[in-house]
């Protein structure tokens, strides 16, 4: 039963759906945007998420987590994708927590995971140095200096950089190997510029200028392999959220077709539109399976999750593009107005598609992993 939620997972999903619908609907994101909110997310909503234990889901019990697994977290991400909720869920709970889970020493886990689990701190993951995701390009580097290190470099497209307490940065260590370090975001030498992207969420450019790093800030098991695994977990998380946004956009479009009349009949009666919706349904079914498969692969502890991750991210990217475009088109003129929420899904989709590798990136990787 790899694809069917168990009772606990179903309950978690249902409660997340209910909570987000009531407490963090699309209207909340609109409000944050219209208020030009300096935090870019609602702190009290976030505190409630913490209280519900969402931050503890993927953290082992020995570090005061719930060890509930990624299939569970995936359901929450899917639901928060439906409501386009802006929060540190993706950056802190999915990405940064994964990095420490995968590459941290026991001491580092004791230190950071406990606090992450209780929501005392948030963290994010800084990978990209180029406008398009290319994790093979790492120029940020550590230089030894008197038993500690200096870190220099620039990271872009860092989710929630401006609101995170800690930033986990991929870099080249003093020996020339790929590594990750965890930085207090208030450290000297760190400049974070908030970037306003089309989805109105939080992103930052992080400039690292001779930032002092002690050896206990270097994630003990960080290397090329664990960085890639961390990225793959993060990609699956992005895919889960983006799948949620896509299925929501689709359902809203279908509902609209049933309401909107033209030429005296509901749009739902036009076969041209029916067939397009049916095709979208098929594509979403395939995407859902790909996401569930990848979440399971993580939970099962599969040695190699690369193919599962790229399959999920690629398929979801393609579907997200399709349904977000069709969503605006099916809503027609009203869909083009800022008043209608469907446009928010279009905008979020393009950002989600670009995060940690777009369709082309993962389709190429899919082929390479299959040996062609």
């Amino acid at each position, binding site marked *: *039963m*790899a*694809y*069917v939620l168990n009772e606990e997972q179903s309950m978690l999903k249902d409660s997340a759906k209910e909570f987000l619908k009531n407490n963090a609907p699309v209207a909340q994101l609109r409000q944050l945007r219209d208020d030009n909110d300096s935090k870019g997310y609602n702190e009290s909503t976030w505190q409630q998420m913490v209280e519900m234990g969402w931050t503890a889901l993927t953290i082992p019990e020995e570090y005061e987590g719930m060890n509930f697994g990624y299939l569970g977290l995936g359901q929450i991400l899917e639901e928060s994708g439906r409501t386009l909720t802006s929060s540190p869920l993706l950056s802190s709970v999915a990405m940064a927590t994964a990095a420490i889970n995968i590459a941290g020493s026991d001491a580092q886990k004791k230190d950071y995971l406990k606090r992450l689990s209780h929501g005392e701190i948030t963290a994010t993951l800084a990978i990209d140095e180029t406008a398009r995701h290319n994790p093979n390009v790492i120029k940020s580097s550590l230089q030894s200096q008197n038993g500690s290190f200096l870190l220099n470099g620039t990271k872009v497209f860092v989710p929630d950089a401006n609101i995170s307490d800690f930033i986990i940065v991929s870099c080249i260590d003093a020996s020339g190997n790929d590594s990750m370090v965890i930085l207090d975001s208030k450290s000297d030498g760190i400049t974070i510029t908030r970037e306003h992207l089309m989805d109105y969420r939080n992103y930052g450019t992080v400039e690292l200028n001779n930032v002092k790093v002690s050896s206990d800030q270097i994630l003990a098991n960080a290397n090329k392999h664990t960085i890639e695994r961390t990225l793959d977990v993060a990609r699956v998380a992005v895919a889960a959220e983006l799948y949620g946004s896509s299925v929501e956009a689709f359902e809203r479009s*279908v509902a609209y*077709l*049933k309401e909107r009349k033209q030429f005296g*009949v*509901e749009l*739902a*009666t036009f*076969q041209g*539109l*029916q*067939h397009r*919706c*049916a*095709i979208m*349904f*098929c594509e979403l*079914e*395939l*995407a*859902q*399976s*790909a996401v*569930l*498969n990848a979440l399971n692969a993580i939970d099962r502890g599969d040695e190699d999750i690369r193919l599962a991750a790229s*399959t999920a991210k*690629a*398929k979801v990217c393609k579907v997200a593009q399709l349904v977000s475009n069709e969503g605006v088109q099916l809503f027609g003129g009203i869909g083009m107005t800022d008043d209608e929420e469907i446009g928010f899904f279009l905008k979020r989709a393009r950002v989600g598609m670009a995060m940690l590798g777009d369709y082309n990136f993962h*389709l*190429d990787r*899919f*082929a*390479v992993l*299959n*040996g*062609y």
Partner: protein
Amino acid sequence: MATTDTVTFKSEVRDFIEANCPEALRKPVKKFEDYFWGGKKSAGGTDEQIKWFNAMKERGWTVPHWPKEYGGGGLSAEENKIFLNEMAKAGARKPLFSFGISMLGPALLKFGNEAQKKEHLTKIANGEIWWCQGYSEPGAGSDLAALQTRAEDKGDHYLVNGQKVWTSYADKADWIFCLVRTDPNAPKHSGISFLLIDMESEGVSTRPIKLISGKSPFCETFFDNVKVPKENLVGQENMGWSIATFLLTHERSMIGGIGDTDVKQALHDFALGQMGSDDNGKLADPLLRKEIAEIELDARTLDMTIQRSLEEAKSGKPIGARSSFFKYAYTEINKRRYEAMVAAAGVNGLGWEGEKYNDGAVAKQFCRTKGNSIEGGTSEVQLNIIAKRILHLRGKKQENGIRT
């Protein structure tokens, strides 16, 4: 939950297969001749096939879940599951293939009278009669209920006139189960009956259909003043549509890739073999590489979705109209797969005859795949079903109760 009985039964089945199933019949079926069909006109099958068939027939295990009084094995649902499991584990072929088992049987069990069950089910179980299906007509494709083959009431018999198409193996079959129109004045779904016709009756003739891919098992079947005894009517007169619907639903849930066990060479391996790779090990044509990756990625997610659906079915969520999705997705992917193969192979993929081209295997299969999205309900019909039955995209009920 293994009880003593089930454990006993399991080892009984296992031992039986071990003792009776010839080694040659423990490989996947690859071509028509690998099937044993029975029937009066049958070429008879190989010695191994006949040995295996007779052993199984004796037990009633050609149709293990049918009642014993009709030649079946009388297995309970649980036993049947064990039985199928053991057969799969041993890789043993079914002893008898027949549309009688897969299609007519379920209808007779549900709608047939006692005499019909006794007569026809038993002969199906014993492999005596090869049945074929007479549904489609030249003027009734997706709109099956528009069928025009007439069966006039002549007192003790019906007089049947008309034409069926796409009757698989009609030229080899002994009997045909047909949808015929018994009331031409009723609304189209209400004037249809389900009739069993002996292919040896006077006035029945068949003609094979050649496809764009070459020879095919399909035939046209013609009825010219064919007399059919009234006892061959299944269910009530003019109620045949409900039997057809029952069988079509049954059929649709069997297709669409579920159970497709052909071991296919990976598409990318085929393409690599045709054109090789570049210095980075990537398929030489980057544009075709993209297409192939898309096809393989879609195929992979479809496999996952079939797996998911089976799990969901086990948890009590029936597949229902989603079988239309599987049918649609599988056939469309298969068409894309063969487009990519023809493109990858260049002129070698276009060869139609000759050893060099393996007698046109790729080209002919390419042509054949174009029918995947037509047979068993066109892709358009599947999309209609998804739109209406799953997404409920249709007009609201008006005050007069009619949907727009």
